């Protein structure tokens, strides 16, 4: 029971954090906390198999999937606070409060009598006997469900390539054509930041005449505003 009283407040707080956090990544981390707490509660309630499955499947696989999709969709997309239906938030809060009170007063008090417990019954062996005994049809059907889900995910997330994939030969010819048309250098751009004082990637390479070459910095850094025209000489002055 100690484990319960330690974990229950943490889990409720994490669940509230899941609902209240503005950023989706924070919500995902809160959900991971709740799931790990549930895993421990399963172990405390005589379900070691479900403890392992909860950690592996939920916190391992499903949360990873959520985080992957968050990365794909864009971590920075914060929730809009605009209400489409007026007063929806207040009404839904009232409804869920009523539901919670009714459920906790009604259902949670329904259990009476002594706890039976499992005694010396082996957990994994008992579950296997049930799964491959009375529940074998449902168990087989879940395999069909999982295969269907995997195929559905592939179909839904697949996107046909609209243009022809550029080959290496085409790319090299295009480089020469660009050089002929616009004079763009056909070779590799110089690498950034290999200097005596600074070798960070946001330090641009210097041309023979001493001027910085902006193309040598990764375009990602420039988009973030981290790269720039701060040459080695400028940084040297800043440092001193």
């Amino acid at each position, binding site marked *: 029971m100690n484990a*319960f009283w330690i974990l*229950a407040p943490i*889990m*409720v707080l994490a*669940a509230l954090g*899941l*609902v209240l956090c503005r950023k*989706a990544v924070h919500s*995902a981390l809160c*959900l991971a906390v*709740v799931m790990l707490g*549930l895993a421990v*509660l399963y172990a405390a*309630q*005589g*379900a070691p198999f*479900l403890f392992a499955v909860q950690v592996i*499947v*939920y916190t391992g*696989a*499903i949360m990873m999937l*959520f985080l992957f*999709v*968050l990365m794909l*969709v864009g971590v920075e*997309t914060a*929730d*809009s606070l605009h209400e489409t239906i007026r007063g*929806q938030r207040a009404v*839904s809060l009232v409804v*869920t*409060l009523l*539901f*919670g009170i009714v*459920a*906790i007063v009604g*259902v*949670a008090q*329904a*259990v009476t*009598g002594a*706890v*039976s*417990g*499992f005694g010396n019954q082996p*957990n994994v062996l*008992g*579950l296997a006997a*049930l*799964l491959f005994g009375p*529940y074998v049809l*449902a168990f087989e059907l*879940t395999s069909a*469900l*999982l295969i269907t*889900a995997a195929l*559905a*995910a592939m179909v*839904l*997330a697949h996107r046909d390539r609209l243009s022809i994939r550029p080959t290496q030969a085409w790319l090299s010819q295009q480089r020469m054509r660009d050089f002929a048309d616009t004079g763009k250098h056909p070779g590799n751009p110089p690498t950034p930041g290999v200097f005596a004082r600074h070798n960070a990637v946001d330090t641009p390479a210097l041309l023979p005449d001493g001027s910085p070459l902006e193309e040598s910095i990764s375009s990602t850094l420039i988009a973030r505003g981290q790269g720039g025209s701060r040459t080695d000489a400028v940084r040297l002055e800043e440092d001193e």
Partner: protein
Amino acid sequence: MTDYLTLSLLLFTIGAAGVLIRRNAIVVFMCIELMLNATNLAFVTFSRQHGTLDGQVAAFFVMVVAAAEVVVGLAIIVSIYRTRRTTSVDDASLLKL
């Protein structure tokens, strides 16, 4: 027993509130996962109360179905995001991409 059930129902209620309040489809989805987890806790609790393992088998099946559901749901969210550049549930109200 009552403590475990109260916690389970509390988590379920918080998840339901999140589904109703939040706009981001991924967060709504996570709240649904929270509700499924809460029911699993109730299953395991009832299983211990009765001393039989059927409740744990039910929780196991819930986990399997939840895994399949997450895969398909997240694929749908990704494909909606590709066409609409948003994951807000308000913007995808036409049942088409």
